[in-house]
């Protein structure tokens, strides 16, 4: 691109179309990157203004601040036509695409968390808090904080409707529920303090991602998360006994081996049947026999839809859970 009177909007559009140029904004000053991108005919002052506009864009900020951890192309695939991540069908499609193997789960979590942040969550009032914990806390702690407008991470991205009852997180997405379970399990007692507190040196999400949370940990009566509740329900042999395959599937999710069916077609990154692990370890390490196949996916769905432990008071968006479960399993 090389012309006068170019705007930051046009530069952003170029970056969306050609994400390979994004790295310029990591490796050099934004104004230099703009000049590199636009050409030499641009006046310095104009380049400065364009650079300011470009750097205001949250997606660009996210990319730059990720310290190289996010691939520009993956990020731009996540961004919809208008250049924003919105609570729209396009965003849902983006998440499905991401979950389908084009982006690993950790990156997804981070992106979603950040998008929530950029969309105006209460960062400024969160001084001293743990970023992710607070983000998740705002999602998971609705019943504690009285913040009835808060939603689960994926739930908010999916544009889930109004929030849950006072003591349930069942409108959270599955992933949110998983995280919720992780958070509750870290708290052990006094769950109110879990959100801003990092037990030991690990953040909550960190501990979950690092695999510190084991399935057994969830089987505590006090857990309020969806999955925790489901597991509690299972262990207590309530209305729907959990069969071994179901346990395997849940165990798989809890263990972080969120797998895609081997039958899944190769994605654009050549990761055929790639196992994406929450703790980032190599697929073969994680492949512990808890692989989720289509049958198990159905069982998870069945479990999610059939359990009385879901506080379905009319505000639960079970459809979201189905969507997420399906997406997680690459269906």
């Amino acid at each position, binding site marked *: 691109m090389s012309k006068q009177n170019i705007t930051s909007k046009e530069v952003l559009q170029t970056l969306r179309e050609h994400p390979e140029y994004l*790295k310029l904004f990591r490796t050099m000053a934004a104004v230099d990157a703009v000049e590199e991108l636009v050409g030499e005919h641009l006046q310095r002052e104009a380049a400065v203004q364009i650079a300011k506009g470009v750097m205001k864009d949250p997606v660009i900020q996210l990319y730059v*601040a990720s310290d190289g951890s996010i691939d520009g192309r993956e990020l731009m695939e996540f961004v919809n036509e208008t250049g924003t991540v919105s609570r729209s069908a396009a965003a849902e499609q983006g998440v499905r695409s991401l979950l389908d193997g084009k982006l690993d789960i950790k990156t997804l979590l981070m992106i979603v968390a950040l998008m929530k942040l950029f969309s105006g969550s209460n960062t*400024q009032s969160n001084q001293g808090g743990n970023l992710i914990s607070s983000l998740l806390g705002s999602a998971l702690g609705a019943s504690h904080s009285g913040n009835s407008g808060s939603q689960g991470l994926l739930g908010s991205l999916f544009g889930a409707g109004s929030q849950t009852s006072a003591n349930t997180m069942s409108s959270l997405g599955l992933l949110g529920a998983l995280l919720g379970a992780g958070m509750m399990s870290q708290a052990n007692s006094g769950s109110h303090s879990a959100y801003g507190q990092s037990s030991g040196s690990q953040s909550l999400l*960190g501990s979950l991602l690092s695999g510190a949370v084991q399935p057994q940990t969830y089987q505590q009566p006090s857990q309020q998360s969806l999955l925790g509740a489901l597991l509690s329900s299972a262990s207590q042999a309530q209305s729907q006994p959990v069969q071994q395959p179901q346990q395997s599937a849940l165990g798989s999710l809890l263990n972080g081996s969120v797998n895609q069916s081997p039958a899944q077609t190769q994605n654009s990154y050549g990761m055929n049947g790639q196992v994406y692990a929450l703790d980032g370890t190599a697929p073969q390490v994680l492949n512990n026999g808890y692989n989720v196949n289509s049958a198990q996916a159905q069982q998870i769905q069945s479990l999610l839809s059939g359990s009385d432990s879901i506080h379905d008071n009319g505000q639960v968006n079970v459809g979201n859970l189905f969507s997420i479960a399906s997406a997680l399993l690459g269906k």
Partner: protein
Amino acid sequence: MGFIDFRDVVKVYRSGEVEIRALDGVSFSLEKGKFIIICGASGAGKSTVLNILGGMDTCTSGEIEVDSSRIDQYNAKQLTDYRRFDIGFVFQFYNLVQNLTARENVELAAEICRDPLDAAETLRLVGLENRMDNFPSQLSGGEQQRVAIARALAKNPKLLLCDEPTGALDYVTGKQILKLLQDMCRKNAITVVVVTHNLAICPMADRVIRMKSGRVVMDEVNETPEDIEHIEW
């Protein structure tokens, strides 16, 4: 074989009919846990080396091995993972998210790594224990660069790559940052590679590689690296 091996690495940029050989057969071998300076004038190829070593760019030919892995053979996804898990970057510009606190900026990068260091602890390590809850706009340039260093360190990387890390800082602050990097290398055994045009700081390095026109023109081991505090320029 070293911790990092560049073997006859060539990088060619093409712009229309014009071909620019940014790297022209670069070879060197670096040990783990050392403080390495790659220096040279603008256009010498030093940043190209750093970008390729950091997985931000790929070479046209040659072999690059880091910790026994051939990164020149990595695909895009593998390079992203490599950057994510193995490399910490420090640039002249701090690239901090303005509406996140210092601690949050560090947590952001750390959260997606395998074995991240504790964000607060890392900030303490760089001397920002009292500034954790400040936003970048409330920090000086040197403090912002410290946050950027903490962010890179919190990833617990195999390799810390710094491209002109003091370029936007005044003399005193720049020295403080270099001392911090030197200390990180000495005390925590992190391999640190600093790219700079400032030849004056070369005596602080364990190893100095000087580049010119895409080639290595000098590669020497410094048996008695100096403390940055004793270096003036």
